[in-house]
C-alpha cells in the first residue's frame, strides 16, 4: 500500500483541533451539545488510532471469559487476582474512551 501522509490519526487530530479552535466558538447554543459530542467522538478516535493494542493479550480474552463463566475464578483469592487484571484492562480502555476519569493510583 502506498503510504499517504498524513495518516488517519494525523487527519483526525488536525480535524479535531480545527473544529475545537475555530468552529466550536461560533456554534449557536442550540447546536452546542451536538458540537461537543463531535469533539468527544473525534477525541476517542484520535486516542484509539494512537494506541498500541497488545495482540497477544487480546488473543487470550475469549478464553478468559469462558474460564470466568465456568467458575475458574470463583475462589476469593483467585477473584482478587482476576480483579487486578480486570482493572488493568479497564484502565487501558478508559485511557481511550474517557481519560479524565482515570484517577491516579
Amino acid at each position, binding site marked *: 500500500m502506498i503510504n499517504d501522509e498524513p495518516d488517519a490519526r494525523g487527519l483526525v487530530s488536525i480535524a479535531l483541533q480545527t473544529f475545537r479552535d475555530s468552529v466550536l466558538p461560533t456554534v449557536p447554543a442550540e447546536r452546542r451539545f451536538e458540537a461537543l459530542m463531535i469533539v468527544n*467522538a473525534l477525541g476517542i478516535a484520535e486516542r484509539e488510532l494512537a494506541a498500541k493494542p497488545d495482540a497477544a493479550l487480546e488473543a487470550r*480474552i*475469549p478464553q478468559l471469559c469462558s474460564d470466568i463463566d465456568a467458575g475458574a*475464578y470463583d475462589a476469593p483469592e483467585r477473584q482478587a487476582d482476576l*480483579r487486578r487484571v*480486570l482493572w488493568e484492562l*479497564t484502565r487501558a480502555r*478508559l485511557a*481511550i474512551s474517557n481519560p479524565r*476519569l482515570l484517577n491516579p493510583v
Partner: protein
Amino acid sequence: MTAEPRLLDETQLPRLEAWIAAKAGADRVSVVDEGPLSGGAISLNLAVTLEIEGGALAGRHEAVLRTGSATGVSASLGKAQEGMVLRAAFAAGALAPEPLFISDAGGADDALLGAPFYIMRRARGVAAGRKVVKADQPQRELAREMGRQLGLIHSIKPGTAGLDFLPMPEPSPGLQCERDYRTWMGRFAGTDPVLAYGLRWLTLHAPPAGEVVLCHRDYRTGNYMVDQGRLTAIIDWEFAGWSDPMEDLGWFCAASWRFGQAGREAGGLSDRADFYAGYEEAAGRRVDQEAVAYWETAAYLRWAAVAIQQGMRHTSGTEPSIELALTGRMLPEIEQDLLRHLDSLAGHTLFGRTA
C-alpha cells in the same frame, strides 16, 4: 426560533382528535401540537394541548403524547403497556403523570399514529440530572421524598388489574436479571471479561427468591422532574416490571447517576440514609443493605447491557446517531464503577457467600 417540524400530519391530527373525543365522551376535541420535548433515547415525547368540549374532561389540558422511536432496547415495554403501568402507579398515589388516554394494545388504535401511544398530563420542572443535583447543600428532603415515592410504587403487587402482561421473574429476580442481561449483551458477554466476571458474580451471590413488587427499573436522577426543589413527577416507566424491591434502591444509589455530586450517594441529592428513611416510612419494609449491594452490582451490568444495545442501534445501521454511538463507548466507565463497587464489597458476606 425556527419552526419545529410537526410530528402529527394533517391526516393524523383529525383522526387523533376524533379518537380522543370518543374516549372522553366529548362533543369536540382539538389538539395543538407544540413540538417534541427532549426525551429519552428510546421514546418520542410530543407536547400537546388538548381543548376538550363536553364530557367529564371538558377543559384545556397541557399534556404529553408519548410513543415509541424506530427501535427500542430489549427491556422496554410497548407504549400502551407503559401507559397501564403509569395508571397503576398513579392509582397507588405515586407522583406519576396522570395518564389520560391509552391506545388499545394490538387493536385498530395502533394504526392511528403507526405505533402504540398514550397521552398523559404534562408536569412542570426540569429532569436534566445536572440541573437537579445542582445545590450548595445536600437536598435531604428531596432524597427522602424520592424514598417515600418508591415505597408507594412498591405497594403495587402481582395480581394488580391491568398488569397481567408483565412477566414474573424465574427462578428469582437476581437469576432472571443475570440471564436477561447476558442475552441483551449478546457477543459482548463472551468478549469482555469485566462483564463476564460481573455476570458470574450475580449468579454466585443472588439473593433467594422473595417478595416481588412493581419496580420502576429506571428510578434515578434524570428520570424525575423537579420544580423549585420539589418533586413534580416520576417519568420514564418503560422498563417497569416485577422484581425484588431492593433492585430500585440499588439503581437509584448507583454511582452512574450522581452527575458530579459523587459524595451524595442517593442520586447526587444527599446521603443514602435520607433516601432509605423515606423509603422505610412509606413502604413499611426495611431496607436490606446486603440486597441493595447485590442490586447495585446488577445496576452496573444492566446499564452496561443497555449501553451496548444503544451503541448497537447505531452500529447496526438502523438508527445512525452520534449520541447512541457515544453511549456505546461508555462501557469502560460503567465497568470502572462496577469494579470499584465490587472492591468495596470484597471480604464481606452476601447471602452466605464471601464476596
